[in-house]
């Protein structure tokens, strides 16, 4: 097993465990921290795939900015495990069953997909994730979507003002 492979399995396990813990933790602050861990694991994956820029952005934006914001909000609202509403065991069971079914069908779906068989992830090579490639794509082929997403952000900003500002 090469070092990349070991890293790949480790990061995958970390991402999965982290994601599970986000859902399972009773304390919201713990959930957020687990989420940060998940993001780091995913950034690791990016680096493995030679996409350094995405990895850095992922850490700066998601793990850094957004998660810190989440933490502030949770602390300001003084949420903790006691504040969380208790759900009936029926609902919990139903949720587990539904989620389990969903996961099962998705897994079986991927397994049925013949063309994925025998293919492995491109590791260490490839230059798609490099900042130069990304920039080229973004400002040629994807200019229009790139610009239009500004409308999306603008409307989100307006919304934040409308909802958040004191009357």
């Amino acid at each position, binding site marked *: 097993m090469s070092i990349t492979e070991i890293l790949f399995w480790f990061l995958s396990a970390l991402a999965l465990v982290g994601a599970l813990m986000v859902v399972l933790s009773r304390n919201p602050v713990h959930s957020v921290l687990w989420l940060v861990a998940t993001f780091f694991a995913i950034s690791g994956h990016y680096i493995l795939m030679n996409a350094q820029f995405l990895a850095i952005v992922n850490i700066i934006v998601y793990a850094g900015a957004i998660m810190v914001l989440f933490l502030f909000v949770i602390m300001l609202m003084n949420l903790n495990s006691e504040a969380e509403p208790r*759900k009936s065991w029926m*609902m919990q069971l*139903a*949720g587990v069953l*539904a*989620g389990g*079914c*969903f996961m099962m*069908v998705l897994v*079986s*779906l991927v397994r049925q997909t013949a063309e994925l068989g025998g293919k492995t992830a491109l590791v260490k090579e490839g230059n798609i994730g490099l900042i130069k490639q990304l920039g080229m794509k973004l400002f040629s082929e994807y200019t229009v979507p790139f610009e239009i997403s500004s409308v999306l952000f603008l409307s989100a900003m307006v919304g934040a003002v409308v909802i958040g500002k004191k009357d």
Partner: protein
Amino acid sequence: MSQLVFLVPLFPLIGFLITGLGRNYLSKTATGYIASGSILGAFIVSCLLFSQVYGSGSGQVFTLFHFIQTEGFSIPFAFQVDQLSSLFLLIITGIGFLIHVYSTSYMHEEDAHHFARFFAYMNLFVFSMLLLVLGANYVIMFIGWEGVGLCSYLLIGYWFKNGDYNYAAKKAFIMNRIGDLGFLLAVFWMLAKLGTATYGEVFSQVATLSTFDITAITMLLFVGAMGKSAQIPLYTWLPDAMAGPTPVSALIHAATMVTAGIYMIARSNVLYTLAPFSQGFVAMIGLATAIFAATIALRQNDIKKVLAYSTVSQLGYMFLGLGVGAYTGAVFHVMTHAFFKALLFLGAGSVIHALHHEQDIRKMGGLKKQLPITHITFLLGCIAIAGIPPFSGFFSKDEILMATYAHQPWMYFIAMGGALMTAFYMFRLYSLTFLGSYRGHTDAAHPIHESPLSMTFPLMVLAVLSVVGGFIGIPAVFAENAHWLEHFLAPVFQPSNELVQHTHLDHATEYLLMGISTVLVLIMILLAVKLFGKDDVDVKKDDTGIKKWMANKWYIDELYQAVIIQPLHIFSVLLKNLVEKNIIDGAVNGVGRLVHYGARQFRLIQSGQVGNYLLFMILSIVVFILIWFNDATILRALNNIF
């Protein structure tokens, strides 16, 4: 040719909207001017169109927009202006205008907003009638067809506070609806078999249909005509329709609406020529109606009822003409009949107006001194309808009778008998009204005097037309190629005439028949005047025997009551008590309870909890994916079940 044609129905429509919407604001004078003016406008445009058709000698179709468009067929909202429709346009708008002018005086006693309501209905009626005549396909014709039926209902029931009048209105509407059903079925049949209802396409493709289809379509169309044109067995509404104001009777139930059936069959002449059975049926019904209604008219005492039965009878003659292939003759008779019957109705209206709504001819008499203009014009109308040469009625009726003789001599003799009765009852009516001495009670406060000019003017115009109107159709025996109308209408009836060669009578036979009929008619007139023109005519005695049957209209209304309405009533009571209460209500309530139950269950799901909602969504997605994995199996199972 110009696009002016759309103005023709537009004018009355605008008139209808203004008078109808502004009925609470407009003065009577304004209403009268607007309503009459709109018809006059339509008349002027019609004249232009007519002259264009006459000049170019051909018709044209104008499409306004696509009314209904589907895969199978397309029905354009289109108008057809040709010889036949332009002639009808002239009749409808011309006579319509005169009657509107007449009505401004006749209806003057009404309140302003009822007055406006009357004119709104009248304008709407003219609009519908124009739509009926102008439409370039059966669907547009049907819209007009229904429209005139509706207006007829509204106008008969114009004095809606009188229960009997409402009953008469309902009767007219229902009888018409029975006929309309036939018409509608015919149109559906046509659309199903030919995929079109446009005249030109139908007529050119109809030969591809089987005889059964053509016969069925024509018979169903004729059912529609029976209702609208008051033929046996659907005629009983027309006499009752006299409940409406007299100008309505003149416009709708004499000059225009009732001729819709004639127009429709004349328009569809190709279909009827290809369906000899239907054509024979039309002739038989026409003949039977002509005689039957004439016998009833002999013993009626209401001035308008006599004219009503006379109308039914004359319509019978027109159908007879259509049935024996004399399409031109039938249209000719429509025209002359429109002149003299409108004249007679308006004259009767003038009498009724002068006598303050007295309609019983037994209480009239000797009115020729008080009502000189009405008297003269009425007399001219009577002569015209009786068929004395050279008045208009002679030429048109003669043409139909001659064609009948050529077709079947025995039919001619029966029809001739009807014509003699016509002469008799018309002059009975005339004598009882204008000759002899006055039998009503005189009222010093309300002396009898002639109607105003706005009423007598239309009478005079119509009288002139009744006298000279026949000259557009002088038969070939008098002068070769003098039958102007036949030449004019020839393009419309050409396909039929190509299919069937009509036998022509030789001139000697024709002269002989004309001579005999004229002499017999004169004898009938003299007899009637002798019997009923006396000063001391006995009008009080009760009728006995067959006369009583005639006076009671052969008890046809009672027959319908007993044979159709009573059983239907019993049946409906049965349905109501048995089927309705137990089966239908049970089923409906059952469905209602089921829905109720379902709603309660659905509402439980709608709990308001986002978690639940998401749960259901996830489960649905799982189900969808599972379906997708097993789609072949599920489909097979479903196919086995269904």
